């Protein structure tokens, strides 16, 4: 991705803390020393398990949740102390969508979208045509007069997206926007958000606990755990080479192959898992292996995942042969693939 060095990041969070006072009077650290930068135009993901502090951090960006300490910079301007009209003006530039859509249930689709336009004092006579245009963008032109209760979850989220885009925001914050939707509807929303990001050049910050959404949508990912940002990387690197244990467990939830429990491997063999990042195919390596070392290799299982259109392969193989040859072969694999995981040596694998 191109980044202009002179441009300020669209969002910069500096050392954000958010404390909540519990009923018993103790304070709960929902976000702790969180710093991050989001570059204009990217789709930036914040992932982590439930309760990690993702929503709280996302709500700090538009000050729905003022931070206990730390600074929030938007386009290089410190907005942490903005209140009243300044804060409202800022929020007009930031769209937001939610897990449960949060549409006004007593208003039609048209009225829902008009609300955002009215918030920006959009010329009254042009509101209707703008609403029509927005509904076309999200593929819901026929739902102008429907009430939210008459729409499916995916349609409601599309209305929410149309509404959030009404005032041409530079930034769209999505809090678990696909978490209440089924897989197929999620795909549709992901495609739509990708389109919006490309066509309208809207920067997207997307919070989720769903790693398969992360894999398909994000350019860059921050991983949160217990209020802290524990790892930040571009999506492909994060998936192919996670460093933090939390990241590893999140990544393995979508990027792994099961090892059959009943698998038995013979005495003179190693069971290993290969991770293979990048464009090169692994076929040459596999065939080189059998050529250069006196080992037999069998592929037990394998798959290729595409992340940001780049392949990431995983293979489960067993290597059979003399111990010394086997170790040489494994060393060769270590040198030529992204990661080699030794699962088991010899004997019985499983329960």
């Amino acid at each position: 991705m191109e980044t202009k060095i002179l441009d300020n990041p669209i969002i910069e969070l500096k050392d954000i803390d958010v404390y909540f006072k519990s009923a018993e009077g103790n304070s709960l650290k929902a976000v702790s020393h969180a710093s991050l930068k989001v570059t204009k135009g990217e789709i930036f993901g914040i992932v982590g398990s439930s309760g990690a502090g993702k929503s709280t951090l996302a709500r700090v960006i538009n000050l729905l949740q003022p931070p206990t300490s730390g600074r929030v910079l938007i386009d290089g301007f410190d907005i942490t102390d903005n209140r009243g009209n300044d804060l409202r003006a800022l929020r007009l530039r930031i769209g937001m969508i939610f897990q449960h859509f949060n549409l006004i249930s007593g208003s039609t689709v048209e009225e829902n979208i008009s609300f955002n336009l009215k918030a920006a004092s959009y010329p009254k006579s042009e509101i209707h045509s703008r609403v029509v245009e927005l509904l076309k963008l999200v593929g819901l032109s026929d739902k102008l007069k429907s009430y939210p209760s008459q729409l499916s979850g995916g349609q409601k989220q599309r209305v929410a997206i149309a509404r959030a885009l009404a005032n041409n925001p530079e930034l769209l914050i999505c809090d678990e926007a696909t978490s209440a939707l089924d897989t197929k509807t999620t795909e549709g929303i992901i495609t739509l958000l990708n389109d919006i990001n490309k066509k309208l050049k809207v920067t997207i910050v997307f919070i989720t606990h769903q790693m398969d959404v992360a894999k398909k949508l994000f350019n860059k990912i921050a991983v949160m755990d217990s209020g802290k940002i524990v790892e930040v990387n571009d999506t492909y690197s994060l998936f192919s080479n996670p460093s933090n244990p939390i990241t590893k467990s999140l990544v393995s939830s979508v990027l792994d192959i099961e090892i059959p429990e009943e698998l038995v491997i013979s005495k003179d063999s190693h069971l290993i898992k290969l991770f293979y990042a990048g464009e090169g195919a692994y076929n040459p390596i596999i065939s080189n292996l059998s050529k250069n070392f006196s080992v037999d290799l069998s592929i037990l299982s394998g798959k290729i995942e595409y992340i940001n259109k780049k392949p990431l392969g995983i293979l489960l193989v067993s290597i059979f042969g003399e111990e010394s040859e086997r170790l040489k072969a494994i060393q060769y694999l270590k040198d030529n693939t992204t990661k080699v995981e030794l699962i088991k040596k010899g004997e019985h694998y499983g329960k």
Partner: protein
Amino acid sequence: MGNNTIEILQQYLWKASYETIEMVIISLLVALIFGTILGLILYLSETELLVKNKVVNSIAATLVNVIRSIPFIILLVVLIPLTKLITGTTIGPIAASVPLSFCAIAFHARLIEGAFADIDSGVIESSVATGSSIKLIITNVLFVEARPAIVRSITITFVSLIGYSAMAGIVGGGGIGDLAIQFGYYRYESGVMLVTVILLVFIVQIAQIIGDKIAESFVH
């Protein structure tokens, strides 16, 4: 039903009904205006994302609590000087409307506060996130989302006012309740008692049915 009963009803029922309607309508209108405003203030001032203000909230809440904690029959008496000041008299349905209004404002304010508080907090959050003004949120979100609950609140306030107006009648307000007490109770005219009770039940039923219908039409 004896001749006496019919005579009494012919002579007093219309007047009594008119007085009841007068008391109830006046105090309902006052409650709709001031109770709604007070309820809105209570809600806005206690809600973090809107205009949370502890001072305003505790003043409004104290006002409401004080009125609500005084038994109505005592409120009637306590407010006599004020009633005299406002209406120039302490007798009749117009005078009775003063304590009724006070009571109804406080009662209605709590119902309205509850109607707003029951709105999905996510909807409030997403509205605030748009950068909209509080005024626009009040008109386009709060009053839209709370509409069914507000209609139900109005029905409840109306029905309660029918009850309170009977009490107000005893201390000089007149109305159906007064008729029932004066003739049905003090003069042992059970027929009058029965007819007024049936009439009150009927009014309350009709109000409830209409209120429910309107509330339902606002649910989407």
